[in-house]
């Protein structure tokens, strides 16, 4: 369940101001020591929150990436990428 690491680091962007600053300055370096799958790391660095949602990451937590504008995200970009995810009527991703 390594998607836990994605959810965890999203909350760390809120709580750990040094980590937040590091993610704003150089996300690849900030993420380097974390245990992430290659796909998770690629998606995070690309700000591909839609794919991370499909992989099980929590939308509420990923919203911190937009709020604090890391990984190339801001509110509008995040909104567009997340809204592009196809979901069923209870919000679960569908193919």
């Amino acid at each position, binding site marked *: 369940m390594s998607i*836990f690491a994605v959810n965890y680091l999203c*909350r760390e962007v809120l709580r750990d101001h040094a980590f937040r600053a590091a993610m704003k300055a150089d996300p690849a370096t900030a993420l380097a020591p974390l245990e992430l799958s290659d796909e998770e790391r690629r998606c995070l660095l690309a700000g591909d929150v839609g794919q991370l949602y499909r992989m099980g990451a929590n939308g509420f937590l990923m919203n911190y990436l937009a*709020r604090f504008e890391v990984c190339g995200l801001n509110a509008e970009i995040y909104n567009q990428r*997340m809204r592009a995810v196809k*979901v069923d009527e209870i919000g679960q991703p569908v193919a």
Partner: protein
Amino acid sequence: MAKIVAGFGVPHTPIFPHFVKRDGPDCEIAKLFGAQKEQLAAMRPDLIVMFDTDHLNTFFLDALPIFAIGIDKSFRAPNDEPRDVPNYVVPSLPALAAHIRAAAVTAGYDVAMTQHFSVDHSVIVPLHFLTPDMKIPVVPFFISGHVPPLPKAERCYALGQAVARAIEAWPEPLRVVVMGSGSFSLEVGGPRMAASRADGVPDPDWAARVIKLLDDQKIDQLIAESTQHRMLKAGNVGGELLNWIAMLGAIGNRKPTYVAPQMQNGHAYGVWTWN
């Protein structure tokens, strides 16, 4: 003995303190919370017990209780940086909180506890508007309303009843107000956000239905309809309705004094007083 004197249903939108600071005392949010503040003051509460869903701040996915209660002489807030909310220390009553927990466990509700804790906007935003002096002790009671599986609505209602019995068995003559914090239909940060917003109201019909059932005092019907599927269909925080349902269990099946909708946010401001 302690007695429950009122029930309140409150929203907790984290940007609301900023909006009120920006837009002043005549804006809709300020007026709706202002009306509740007057109602609350008239009840002269000695304690507020607030049913609330933590937004993965007090707890997290590494240890996520379905039910939990905060037990300490005070707690800090907010821990999630909502805009224009000062840092508060909220007093609490740890002996009474521990008594509620023990009574709930005895009644069959396995309630976790947290001590030396802080809370997020979902507790402090309503208190910021309703009790800004932070003189009234608050016991937060956490219900997992965001991360499925959600507890069942009927169980949350019965939990509220058990909490009420515990409060009413407390020997001090405290006047207790019970609150439920949260939305009926809201998606935060998920795919069902509205365009160019950080949130959205995926199911306004459900929010209107909840408000109608509250107004009509059809609590059994509300509980029957509030399935996990129905609440999740209303948004990724739709399970916050469970906090209102637990509050209703605590106050008994009563007609509301009023339920004021704020449909653009999928929530309402509710007051239940009697006597």
